[in-house]
C-alpha cells in the first residue's frame, strides 16, 4: 500500500506551479525526495509510489486544470498539444496521423489500450527509468547510491551508446517522434516561464543531477508545440519489443524525411532504447541528406544504418541492440 499523502486539485497551471514551488522550496538533493509532485495520468507515478521509490507528501492533481487536454493545429503556428492529451487521443487524431505520422504511431505503440487511455503526453516524457535496479530494492547510482549495478549485471535492456554513470534508457516512445518534428516544451515555474526543445530537455544523468530530464522541482510542462512540417514530409516510428505489443522498446526509431523532389532535403533519425536520452543518429542523417531516393534504395539506407551504429559499445547482454538498431533505421528509411 502507498504511504499516506495529501491530494489537492489545482485549478490553473500557475496554481500548480505555486504549490510545487512552496512545497519543494527546500530543494531536495534527490528528485525522488520531492515532497510535492504532480499527478496527471498516474500510470507511472503510482507504480513508483507503490514500490516506495518516491513517497510524496502531497499530490497536486492537474487534471482539474481546464484546457490542458487540447489538440490545436494551425498551418501558420503548427501543432499545439496540451500536456494532458492522452496517448489514445494522439493516436487517433486524424491531423496528427496525416502530418505527424510518427507521433501517432509512437503513441499507438507506447502501451496497452488501458494505459494509453489514462496516460498523458506530458507524463509520458517524465517517466522514470524502467531499469530493474532502479525499480527494485537496490540503492543504485541513479537513486543516489554509489554504483550502477546494471553495468556489470543484467543489462539486456540498457544503453549501448552515450553511456554515463547510469546506463538506463529513457522509456518514452513519443519523445523520439517529437524530436524528429523539432518539438518545443513550454515550461512554467512559480516565477518564470521557459521554452526548451524536447531534444535538449532529456539529459544524461550527472552526479549533480541524477535525473533523466531538465524539469526542476517547481516546474510543469504547460504545452508542447511542433512546427508545421514542410510539404512532402514523411515520417515513421518503428519499435521492436520482446513481444508484439505493449512492451518497452528494445530499440526504436523515429525517422522523418522532407523531400525536395527526388532529393532528401532534411532527415531526422532519432533512436530510442539505445542511450540514456533519445539518440540522434547524426552520422546516418548526414550520410543521406542531399541524396536521391534511388540512392537510398540501392544500398545507401543500409550503409547509413550501419554507420549509425559504429560507435556502439554493447555490454555483456545487449550486443543484439546494434544490429537491431541498424536494421530498424534501414527499414524506416526505406519506408519513407
Amino acid at each position, binding site marked *: 500500500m502507498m504511504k499516506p499523502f495529501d491530494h489537492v486539485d489545482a485549478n490553473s497551471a500557475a496554481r500548480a506551479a505555486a504549490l510545487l514551488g512552496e512545497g519543494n522550496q527546500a530543494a531536495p538533493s534527490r528528485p525522488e525526495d520531492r515532497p510535492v509532485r504532480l499527478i496527471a495520468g*498516474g500510470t507511472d507515478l503510482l507504480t513508483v509510489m507503490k514500490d516506495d521509490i518516491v513517497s510524496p507528501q502531497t499530490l497536486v492533481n492537474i487534471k482539474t486544470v481546464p484546457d490542458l487536454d487540447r489538440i490545436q493545429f494551425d498551418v501558420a503556428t503548427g501543432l499545439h498539444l496540451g500536456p494532458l492529451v492522452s496517448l489514445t487521443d494522439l493516436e487517433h487524431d486524424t491531423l496528427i496521423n496525416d502530418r505527424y505520422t510518427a507521433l501517432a504511431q509512437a503513441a499507438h505503440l507506447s502501451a496497452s*489500450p488501458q494505459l494509453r487511455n489514462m496516460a498523458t503526453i506530458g507524463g509520458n516524457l517524465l517517466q522514470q527509468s524502467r531499469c530493474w535496479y532502479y525499480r527494485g530494492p537496490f540503492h543504485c547510482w541513479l537513486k543516489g547510491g554509489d554504483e550502477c549495478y546494471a553495468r556489470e549485471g543484467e543489462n539486456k535492456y540498457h544503453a549501448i551508446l552515450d553511456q554515463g554513470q547510469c546506463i538506463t534508457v529513457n522509456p518514452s516512445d513519443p519523445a523520439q517522434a517529437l524530436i524528429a518534428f523539432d518539438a518545443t516544451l513550454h515550461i512554467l515555474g512559480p516565477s518564470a516561464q521557459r521554452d526548451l526543445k524536447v531534444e535538449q530537455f532529456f539529459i544524461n544523468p550527472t552526479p549533480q543531477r541524477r535525473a533523466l530530464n531538465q524539469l526542476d522541482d517547481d516546474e510543469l510542462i504547460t504545452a508542447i508545440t511542433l512546427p508545421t512540417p514542410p510539404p512532402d514530409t514523411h515520417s515513421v516510428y518503428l519499435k521492436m519489443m520482446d513481444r508484439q505489443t505493449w512492451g518497452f522498446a528494445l530499440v526504436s526509431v523515429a525517422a522523418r524525411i522532407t523531400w525536395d523532389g527526388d532529393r532528401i532535403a532534411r532527415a531526422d533519425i532519432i533512436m530510442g532504447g539505445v542511450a540514456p536520452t533519445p539518440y540522434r543518429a547524426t552520422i546516418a542523417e548526414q550520410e543521406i541528406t542531399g541524396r536521391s531516393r534511388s540512392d537510398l534504395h540501392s544500398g545507401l539506407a543500409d550503409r547509413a544504418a550501419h554507420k549509425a551504429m559504429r560507435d556502439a559499445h554493447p555490454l555483456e547482454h545487449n550486443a543484439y541492440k546494434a544490429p537491431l538498431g541498424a536494421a530498424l533505421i534501414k527499414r524506416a528509411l526505406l519506408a519513407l
Partner: protein
Amino acid sequence: MPSNLPAGHSRRTITMTVNDEQHTVYVEPRRTLLDALREDLGLTGAKKVCDLGQCGACTVIKGNRAIYSCLTLAVECAGQSIQTIEGLAQADPAPGSQLRLHAIQQAFIECDAYQCGYCTPGQIMAIKALLEHNPNPTLDEVKMGVSGNLCRCGAYPNIFRAALRAAELLRTAG
C-alpha cells in the same frame, strides 16, 4: 507537510456513479479505485493481481474508456461514471426471471473463453470498451483490444473468438 499547503490528508467523501447507481465512499487519497470498488462497495468482480497496471485484471470502464482501476485514485473519480462487470447483466422485465447476461458474457460461455476465470472480468470490460468504439473489429483489432489483459491459462484463442462472437450478437441485436 509544508504548513502553507491546503490540508487534504484525511479521508474525504466522494460520490461516483457505479453501474448507473450513485455511490458515496469515504476514502483516503491513497485509496485506489480498485480498492474502493472491492473494499468499500463490495464489488469484487474487478480483480487485484499485479496492482501495477501490467495484468489488466482490474480493468473497468471510466466514462467510455477502459482503464486500470489499480492505477486510478478513487478521489479522482468524484462525479465520474464507472462500469464494472457487475453492471453488465440486466434484469429481465418478465416477473420472476433471472438476470439476463450481456452478449459478451454469453459469448464467453459459448466459446469457452476461460479456464480459471480470474482474468475474465477484465477481459470482458476491455472487450466492451473495444466494441463500443469499434462494433465490427477484425481479429487483429480484437487482439490489440485485449493486449492489456493477461491470461495466464492461455485462453487467448477462445477469448478472441468470444469477442468476435459478441460483436456479431450485438450487431444482430441492433
